[in-house]
C-alpha cells in the first residue's frame, strides 16, 4: 500500500477539494500526491495561520478544506484555531507530521513535541495519533467525523508511521 496515495484517496472520497500545505520532509509524498490530483485545488501557504484563513474562506465558499502541516504549527495557530475555526464553528481536518517523536533525529523538534498533545487537549481538539500505517485505516472515519461535527480535528503522524528517516 502506498500510504501517500491512500491518504489522498480518502481526502478525495470525502469530497475534500481545497488543501493548503506548509511543507515537512515527512509530508513530501502526500503533498506531491495532493498536487497531482485534479480533484484537489492545492495552495501552499507561507504560514499555517494564513492557511487556516484560506481554509475558512474556502469552507464558506462551499468547499471542504484540509490543512497539512507540522506540529510546530500548533504553536503558531492557537489564536486562529480559537477565534476563527472554533468560534465560527468550522470543520478543519489537520494532517500533522508529529516531529520530535520516536526515531526523530533533530533534538529541537522534541521541544514542541512535548507540548503538542497538551496544547491540543487544552483546546478541546479531537486528536488521533498514527504510529503504524495500519492506524491510517481510520483516516476515512476521522474525515467523516470532522465534517459531521464542524470542528478542527488533529491527525498526528509520527516518524514511525512514515517509516523513519531513511538511514536513521
Amino acid at each position, binding site marked *: 500500500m502506498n500510504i501517500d496515495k491512500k491518504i489522498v484517496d480518502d481526502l478525495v472520497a470525502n469530497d475534500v477539494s*481545497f488543501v493548503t500545505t506548509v511543507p515537512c520532509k515527512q509530508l513530501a509524498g502526500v503533498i506531491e500526491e495532493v498536487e497531482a490530483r485534479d480533484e484537489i485545488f492545492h495552495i501552499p*501557504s507561507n504560514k499555517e495561520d*494564513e*492557511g487556516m484563513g*484560506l481554509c*475558512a*474562506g474556502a469552507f464558506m*465558499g462551499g468547499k471542504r478544506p484540509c490543512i497539512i502541516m507540522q506540529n510546530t504549527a500548533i504553536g503558531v495557530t492557537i489564536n486562529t484555531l*480559537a477565534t476563527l475555526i472554533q468560534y465560527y464553528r*468550522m470543520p478543519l481536518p489537520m494532517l500533522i507530521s508529529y516531529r520530535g517523536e520516536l526515531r526523530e533525529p533533530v533534538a529541537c523538534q522534541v521541544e514542541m513535541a512535548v507540548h503538542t498533545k497538551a496544547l491540543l487537549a487544552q483546546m478541546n481538539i479531537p486528536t488521533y495519533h498514527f504510529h503504524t500505517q495500519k492506524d491510517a485505516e481510520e483516516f476515512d472515519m476521522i474525515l467523516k467525523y470532522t465534517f459531521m461535527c464542524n470542528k478542527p480535528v488533529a491527525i498526528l503522524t509520527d516518524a514511525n508511521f512514515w517509516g523513519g528517516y531513511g538511514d536513521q
Partner: protein
Amino acid sequence: MIRSEILKEIAPILRPHLVVCNIGLPSQELHMIDDQPTNFYMLGTMGLSSSIGFGLALAQDKTVISIDGDGSVLTNLGTLPTIANNATDNYILMIIDNGSYGSTGDQPTYAGKKTNLTDVARACGCDNVIECRDVDTGKVLQEAIDSKKMTIIVVKCDSGNIKLPVITMDPVVIRDRFMKAVQA
C-alpha cells in the same frame, strides 16, 4: 477622510458583493453603516481578512472584496505572495492604509513610516496594484470590480476613529447568514 467616512461612501458599491471585513473597528463601522448578509465580520484573528476572502474567492465565482488595514496586512505579510501566485479575477483586496493601528489607539504602523505597501504588493508579484487617495476610493473600487481582474487597492487616508458599539451577533449566526448569502 478617515476609514469610517470611506466605508460610508463605498457602502452602496460593496452591497451587491461578498465582503470579508477586518477585525475591530472596520467591522463595527461596516456593521453600523450597512449591515448585510453578504458581510462577513471578523470578531478576532487579526491579519486574516485577506486570507479568508481569498480562500472564498478561490472556492466560488462571485466577486469577493476583502477590507483590510495596513497594520493587519503587516501582521500577515505572507498573504501577498500567496495571492499573487494564485491569482483569481473575482478577488479584490482593499487595504485601508491610515498608517496606524486604529482599533488599539492609533499607534503608528511601519506602513505610515518607511514601508510602502503598494511597493510591497508589487514586489510580491501582484499584477494590478493601485494606490489611491481617500476621496477616489469609490471610483477606483468600482473600476476594479468592473475590470474583472484581481486587484489590490491601497487607500491612503487619515487615521481616526468614531465611537461605536461592538458587534454582539453570534459568530455562528454571522457565518451561517453569510454562507446562505454566498449560496444564494
